[in-house]
């Protein structure tokens, strides 16, 4: 594959409520962060891909709000609706197509401006399902129930994911919820939908992220330290929850297989140094690890308990604190990518994984992880 690198990343702090910022203010902050990081000005950007969602932003054509702040004025621009990792993938195709040498990708959302339960209820089929009133939390709780039933994973093991990620967030100044908690704290927090307690669920937050892609010949022109895109793929499962085997993620398995093959990875568990996964709920971090072949089916819970996925473990997962510690819905996938770029550059400061050379990031669209996007990033030695 022609080589494309990520040479700039910029992120806002993830907060419960950015009351003083409009969408444009958030995007402007992230875009300028990415431009400074890459040592570029807006004129060096050939084209822009913004990522947003009309429902979450409460605005038809939600990309119109952030056009000016992303510097689209005299540029080619497009807008992806869905998670930022999918926006970055479309940005990658525009960089590989030969039309553009550099691509700025932004992704933003504000959970504080709307009611997430109603926004996600609108993802259900209006004819057969919506009227019964499910939303993302109740749907994913049903998934967790099926996963616990099939794999004998325990609620304590789910809680351990929350303890790990909130703990990691103490070393990430951008995270929203750094917390020192125990398994018992999680199990005694409010039960929202069996089997998910409040601390099993990620918050819905405000935040924005921007990255800059550059083709191989454009990279030397800027001072941003390149992290290379070695493999990327995406795939969707069936839509109706009843059509799917909820406790498994076949579409993630296919996306991961293809991304690893592109990157020449044969033994993912050993060849990957750090992972930023889409932990919208505690059971999902375990499910995604198993579906990607990073550990055996049904064993993620026990491997977590003997510390394999902690910062000093065999395969550190979500050293940034993950979604559980801060979840701006549309930006979450792009933030995972940006975190891996920081890790591979050795710029993750307190949550740095020593000599990480190759990492993976994951974005998710739809209910209960229907559609997955897997990125493999690497650093030239």
């Amino acid at each position, binding site marked *: *594959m*022609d080589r494309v690198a990520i040479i700039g990343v910029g992120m806002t702090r993830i907060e419960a409520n950015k009351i003083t910022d409009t969408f444009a203010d958030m995007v402007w902050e992230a875009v300028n962060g990415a431009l400074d990081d890459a040592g570029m000005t807006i004129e060096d950007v050939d084209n822009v891909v913004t990522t947003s*969602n*009309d*429902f979450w932003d*409460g*605005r*038809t*054509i939600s*990309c*119109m*709000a952030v*056009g*000016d702040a992303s510097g*689209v*004025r*005299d*540029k*080619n*621009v*497009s*807008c*992806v*609706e*869905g998670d930022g990792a*999918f926006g970055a*993938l*479309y940005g*990658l*195709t*525009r*960089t*590989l*197509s*030969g*039309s553009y040498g550099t691509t700025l990708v932004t992704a933003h959302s504000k959970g504080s401006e709307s009611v997430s339960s109603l*926004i*996600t209820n*609108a*993802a259900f*089929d*209006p*004819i057969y399902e919506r009227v019964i009133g499910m939303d993302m939390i109740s749907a994913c709780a049903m998934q967790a129930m099926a996963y616990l039933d099939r794999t004998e994973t325990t609620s304590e093991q789910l809680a351990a994911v929350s303890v790990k990620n909130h703990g990691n967030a103490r070393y990430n100044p951008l995270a929203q919820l750094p917390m020192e908690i125990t398994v018992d704290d999680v199990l005694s927090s409010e039960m929202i939908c069996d089997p998910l307690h409040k601390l099993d669920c990620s918050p819905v937050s405000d935040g924005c992220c921007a990255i800059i892609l550059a083709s191989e010949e454009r990279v030397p022109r800027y001072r941003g330290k390149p992290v290379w895109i070695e493999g990327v*793929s*995406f*795939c*969707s*499962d*069936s*839509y*109706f929850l009843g059509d799917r085997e909820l406790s498994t993620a*076949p*579409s993630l398995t*296919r*996306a991961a297989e293809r991304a690893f093959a592109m990157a020449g990875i044969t033994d993912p568990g050993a060849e990957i140094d750090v992972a930023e996964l889409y932990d919208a709920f505690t059971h999902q971090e375990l499910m995604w690890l198993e579906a990607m072949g990073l550990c055996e089916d049904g064993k993620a819970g026990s491997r977590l308990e003997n510390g394999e996925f902690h910062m000093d473990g065999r395969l550190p997962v979500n050293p940034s604190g993950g979604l559980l510690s801060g979840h701006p819905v549309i930006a979450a996938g792009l933030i995972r990518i940006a975190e891996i770029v920081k890790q591979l550059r050795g710029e993750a400061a307190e949550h740095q994984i020593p000599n990480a050379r190759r990492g993976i990031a994951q974005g998710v*669209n*739809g*209910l209960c992880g*229907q*559609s997955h996007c897997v990125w493999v990033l690497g650093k030239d030695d």
Partner: protein
Amino acid sequence: MASKRVAIVGTGQTYHKSRRPDVNGQELINEAVQSALQDADLGIDQIDAIVIGNMDHFEGINYVDCWSVDGSGGVMKPIIKLTTGGTTGSTLGIGGYHMVASGMFEKVLIIGWEKNSESDTTGAITTAFDAIWDRLVFAGAISGLAAEAQAYMARYGATERDGARVAVRDRKNACSNPYAQLRKEITVEEVLASPMLSDPVHLLDVCPRTDGACAVIMASEDCAEKICGVPDWIWATANRHTYSYLGDANYGRLDSMADASREIYAKVGITEPKKQIDVIELYQPYSFAGIMWIEDLGLAPHGKGAEYVWSGATDMDGELPINPSGGVIACNPIGATGLIRCAEAALQIAGRAEQRQVPDVDFALSTGFGGCFWSDVILHGKRKPEAPRK
């Protein structure tokens, strides 16, 4: 994989109607997808990725890419959603082009759809504008466009008859397009007699509300010629989202169209668009756009658009036919409309546009309009471009 040249090898459309109570959204999408697959003689399993789009608030369905898989064929396949308001259809065409040109996907299925009958479109469009500044004052697309027409008339002395002439041309063309929704001719007098919606725009000057879907299959140079006899090669794409606030727009000129078309002409060396382009499928949601925006496309000097249209140059037997399909005034399922322009241009290039075929087409232009006076432009060609466009 180096960057690849890309061609449209198959297109499919539904028979667009004001309402389709016989199908739900996924089934409407499936109709267009099945006919595109048939047109290219491909099975869904030969498709490597899917790009889909619509305007969310017209159907009130979140995460349409995920919801659509039963109809779009996205089960266990890569599927992604692009949406940019009115230009969604052309954004999808440009998106499909880049996905194939990147070399990551050899055959991509592109789907634009809308069921306008399922919502209150004005209510949904109003939320497009800034909630703090524009939305309280503004109501619906028509008044914005009317302000543009008014400014143009004030600046260049155009009249309501000029707009009506464009509507008459397109409604006549639509009679030979089986997919179009409104297939009945109208006269200038009928347009001027129809109710005034927002000065100077009458009811027959504007597009209808439509339920419809369109699907296009793009393939890379490695297999395009094997799949279809006369592939429609994508020579260049460009777009601009110049403004975000209604007040900023340069009323009477469409700057985004001027910039985007100039970029394309420079890239491929077009110096005389009127001579070098054989047919245009212009995304023109209301008649006055047909006299104004052709100036921004470089077909007539500023203020002389109406003259060019009255000269008959843009009629079916003119030097540069515009909207042989009947265009947007005859049919507007918004999320699909920009992609319908792209599909119709492909049919013209491939010589398969039946009664609405323009003779010997070498180059065709398809455009998209929407958002806050945004424009997309795609150049289609019969000849294969030399090296991948840079």
